[in-house]
């Protein structure tokens, strides 16, 4: 069923919206959750909470692309859960590896996160992503949005792993330079 019709069911408070969302996107959502959490049990909770999150947010939201909307909810919930579960420890999951890589861009020190700083970071990031080539942007987001391993990115896009690694390294360096120019580092 088309996303538009499923979203209409959410708006009509028809619970078939959840069933149809599950049928269409459950495996995709599990992939995101498992990439972050590396645990079926934790992933299951994240995915279940995603449907609750979707039910509670649609309406007033009216997503055009339901897949990315649900994926975003799952990603946020999974990262939150990851932080809660791994507050003091380091694990070899893709999330831990991705955080290690991103600490080349910004240090892994505590920040007194303010809403203003967050908004500014979002703005800079959007400008930065727009400045990238399509390939660079896709590789960057597959690594840090989807948390896919390098081998998976290479296979899905038809590149060698060394090209993916090199592209990621250069993109992270460019992002660091952008943040420095904007005074956030």
């Amino acid at each position, binding site marked *: 069923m088309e996303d538009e019709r499923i979203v209409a069911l959410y708006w009509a408070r028809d619970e078939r919206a959840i069933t149809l969302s599950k049928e269409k996107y459950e495996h*995709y959502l599990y*992939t995101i959750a498992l990439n972050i959490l590396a645990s079926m049990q934790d992933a299951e909770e994240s995915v279940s909470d995603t449907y609750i999150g979707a039910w509670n947010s649609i309406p007033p939201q009216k997503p055009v692309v339901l897949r990315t909307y649900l994926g975003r909810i799952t990603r946020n919930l999974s990262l939150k859960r990851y932080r809660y579960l791994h507050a003091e420890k380091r694990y070899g999951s893709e999330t831990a590896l991705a955080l290690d890589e991103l600490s080349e861009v*910004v240090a892994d020190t*505590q920040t007194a996160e303010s809403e203003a700083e967050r908004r500014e970071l979002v703005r800079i990031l959007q400008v930065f992503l727009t400045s990238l080539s399509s390939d660079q942007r896709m590789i960057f987001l597959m690594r840090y*949005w989807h948390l896919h391993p390098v081998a998976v990115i290479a296979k899905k*896009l038809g590149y060698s792993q060394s090209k993916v690694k090199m592209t990621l390294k250069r993109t992270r360096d460019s992002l660091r330079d952008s943040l420095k120019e904007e005074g956030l580092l």
Partner: protein
Amino acid sequence: MKRNELLLDVIGEVKDEYLQEIDSRIKRVRRGRRWKRALLAACVILIAGIVVQFAVMLGGGLGSRSGGFSAEGLVAGGYYFHQTRDGDVFRYTPEEGSVRLIKGCILDRWKNTRCSTTANGYGFYYSKGDWIYRIKHGETKSEKLYHYESKAKYPDLYPAGANDIAVFVDYNRADVLTHHEVLIIDGITGECKTVVMERNIPYYEPETMPFDDPRFADKSDKSDENFTVYADTVTYTVGGRTLELVYQGSEDELDYTYCLTENGKPLYNGYVEPYDVRTVGDSLVFTIGRGGNNLGKDLNGYVIVSPDGTNRVVNVPSVPGNEKFFFTVKDVEDGQSIFAVRTSDNEKFKLKWDRAEERHVRDIYSNGSYIWTMGFDGKKGDGPASCYRIEYENGIPTALTLIDDDITDNNK
């Protein structure tokens, strides 16, 4: 929150269009691979055809052991079935020796293709002409089981659970239009339980492949959806458990992106093949596909689902044996070794191997009590299949003892 965590968080707020860009690109890469695979397959068929023509011209003929396909084996119902390159099929047990079930089961003499065969817990099955035939375990007489409703091209048979078989077949219903279907046939009654019409596409012989045909060069995102239809769910039962393989859509490289579920919950994080489902003991064994988290890995593994509620994943390229151990042959420093793989934890145990001879072993097959090895003699082609008994100590396989160095020769 740490700053790198904040950055990771904030990346989640990128525009939807950037994420959709990724989906579109992956689809294009996958479509390009399919097209390349189809072209490669067409080239292979064309080259194989040329090789065969030369073999015939030079007097080799198709009755000799030149070129053609290798011998194959399969294990089901307590038997080992061995198909030679000439299409003879033998059924073997160490107690009874070997029985030739079929002589010269050739599908296409020109292309040197044998008839496709498979077996499950009920019998042995093969496709020839307009029929699928069955030979019940313990018997030798062939019975007609299922008649194709139209002229079938190169059918492929696979096990589909305890008593069913899956048949992949192309029917020519018009000069250039081919229907590719998957039939699920009840191996006991011959009833066709399900037909999934997978593809309804123009079919061309390799030498007339229309490289400029827009239907092959179609770059639109919807082109695959117009051509290919997969069953939404494929259902199996094991004991009192009902398993559903749910189609996930074309997200990854492979077409068959099915998720194995029970009561709506996935049993495995990845894809499994919906057909080619074997019975080992009382359990069903699903072959792991290459999508999902297995992308990029050189994996040939299995998910074992048992009636007692347990599920196990074998991550080692291997062949099924019994529910506790699978087996694999590996090249090691001093030649080859056979290992038992414990299904509960994938631990490997090297077996002491009293080898029949020094030829390279190409394939192995097992039922947990015996292992059959298929050798390769290089220029001479396939060597005979040998049978070894698996010795156990404290429930762990430790060694192989040769009991028959050529199972097609009744002199044990």
